[in-house]
């Protein structure tokens, strides 16, 4: 293990930290609608999702051979750039979590890497045509496809059950939701834990601690799985509230339709080799399910803010990654330490601000808004 330098150790720790934020950022994709309809108790939902993420991490043997899927020129990528990119991705994930916006963790990671490589190696290190092909097109298409599927399915479900007794119907769909949400979690574990494993493995290879073409050692699989599972279990309650309550009021047939649509889109695209963001698929499904039930109110303001967050994610993470990369390239180990310390300070600051108006398992379904600063009137009333 004498190949593991200070920088490599820092990259590994940062990659696991990113994996952790990825977990709690994405709990909502699988579980938000189940929590909102009461199909699963909030604590149970995150436990199931976290456990399935861990299982998924061990199941995925086909670890990503590239960090970025060809978006950046990987011959030019140094561990320092990976570190800078990860810092940018983590900070963007935390910031969007603070305001309760579901944004794509994969886009944050790609953005961070693009920024870091651009600054560290020059713009020729970034393959912009690949950015369009691998990120932009799936980002536009996948939520639309998922939304249309969920819309039609929801409409039919309500049409069929219009004259049936509502209690057993709602109960039946709640049970169905548990199955569909679990599938989303499992698919998420196999996809997203894999990305972190890829980052760590490639860093170890570039440092000479592993031979070229080596697979990830068991400790890498285990730690990446644990980091994403723990993050999921901790639960990104702010984002769960936005997705389960904020976009539209979800009932159990809608939840079932939305989760089924998400699972199907994720599985069919993976089968045909499309990379896509689970977050955007899940958001599209929920919007579609909201539109499919007549009289369901869709809050377009929330949807609009979410779309803006999607657009900004990549450039914002790229900016942060680029800034970090310039410090790391020019400052060496000292620069790396400074970036790490500044990153930790900013992360701590975001957590402190979130504490002023915390969202947790007990109040996640109370309201549909995420407020910063002083507690909102609803919180005061429930506390009194």
């Amino acid at each position: 293990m004498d190949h593991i330098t200070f920088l490599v150790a820092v990259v590994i720790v940062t990659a696991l930290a990113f994996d952790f934020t990825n977990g709690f950022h994405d709990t909502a994709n699988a579980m938000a609608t189940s929590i909102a309809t009461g199909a699963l108790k909030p604590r149970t939902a995150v436990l199931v999702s976290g456990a399935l993420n861990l299982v998924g991490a061990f199941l995925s043997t086909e670890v990503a051979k590239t960090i970025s899927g060809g978006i950046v020129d990987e011959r030019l990528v140094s561990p320092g750039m990976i570190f800078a990119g990860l810092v940018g991705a983590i900070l963007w994930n935390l910031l969007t979590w603070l305001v309760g916006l579901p944004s794509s963790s994969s886009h944050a990671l790609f953005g961070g890497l693009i920024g870091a490589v651009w600054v560290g190696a020059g713009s020729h290190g970034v393959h912009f045509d690949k950015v369009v092909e691998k990120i932009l097109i799936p980002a536009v298409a996948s939520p639309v496809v998922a939304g249309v599927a969920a819309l039609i399915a929801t409409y039919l479900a309500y049409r069929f059950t219009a004259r049936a007794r509502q209690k057993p119907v709602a109960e039946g769909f709640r049970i169905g939701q548990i199955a569909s949400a679990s599938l989303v979690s499992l698919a998420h574990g196999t996809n997203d834990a894999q990305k972190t494993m890829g980052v760590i493995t490639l860093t170890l290879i570039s440092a000479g601690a592993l031979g070229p073409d080596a697979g990830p050692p068991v400790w890498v699989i285990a730690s990446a799985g644990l980091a994403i599972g723990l993050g999921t279990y901790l639960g990104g309650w702010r984002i769960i509230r936005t997705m389960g309550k904020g976009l539209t009021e979800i009932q159990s047939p809608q939840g079932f339709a939305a989760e089924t649509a998400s699972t199907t889109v994720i599985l069919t695209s993976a089968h045909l080799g499309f990379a896509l963001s689970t977050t955007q698929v899940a958001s599209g499904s929920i919007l579609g399910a909201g539109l499919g039930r007549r009289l369901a109110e869709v809050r377009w303001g929330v949807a609009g803010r979410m779309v803006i967050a999607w657009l900004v994610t990549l450039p914002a993470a790229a900016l942060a990654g680029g800034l970090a990369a310039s410090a790391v390239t020019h400052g060496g180990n000292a620069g790396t330490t400074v970036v790490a310390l500044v990153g930790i300070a900013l992360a701590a600051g975001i957590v402190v601000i979130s504490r002023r108006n915390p969202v947790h398992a007990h109040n996640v379904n109370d309201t549909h808004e995420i407020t910063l600063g002083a507690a909102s009137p609803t919180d005061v009333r429930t506390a009194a």
Partner: protein
Amino acid sequence: MSIDWTALGQVTAVSVGVTVAVVAVFTLGVLGLARVEGGRAEPAGPSVAGRAQAALCFLACAAVVAYGIYLIVPQFH
């Protein structure tokens, strides 16, 4: 840069088709269950038919879930 419209079309068609089919079949199963509960006061007829309908539909959904797990787990391929 080239957009693979065929693949995109395939994803769309398969996703929409499978989602709508699964949700429709599951809804029929739920309706069967609702008939069982609603039919208790009546003669046995609707209750048995409802149970059979529910069992059949949920079995079909379980098969789809099993196929989904098969797709997710690379060891099965």
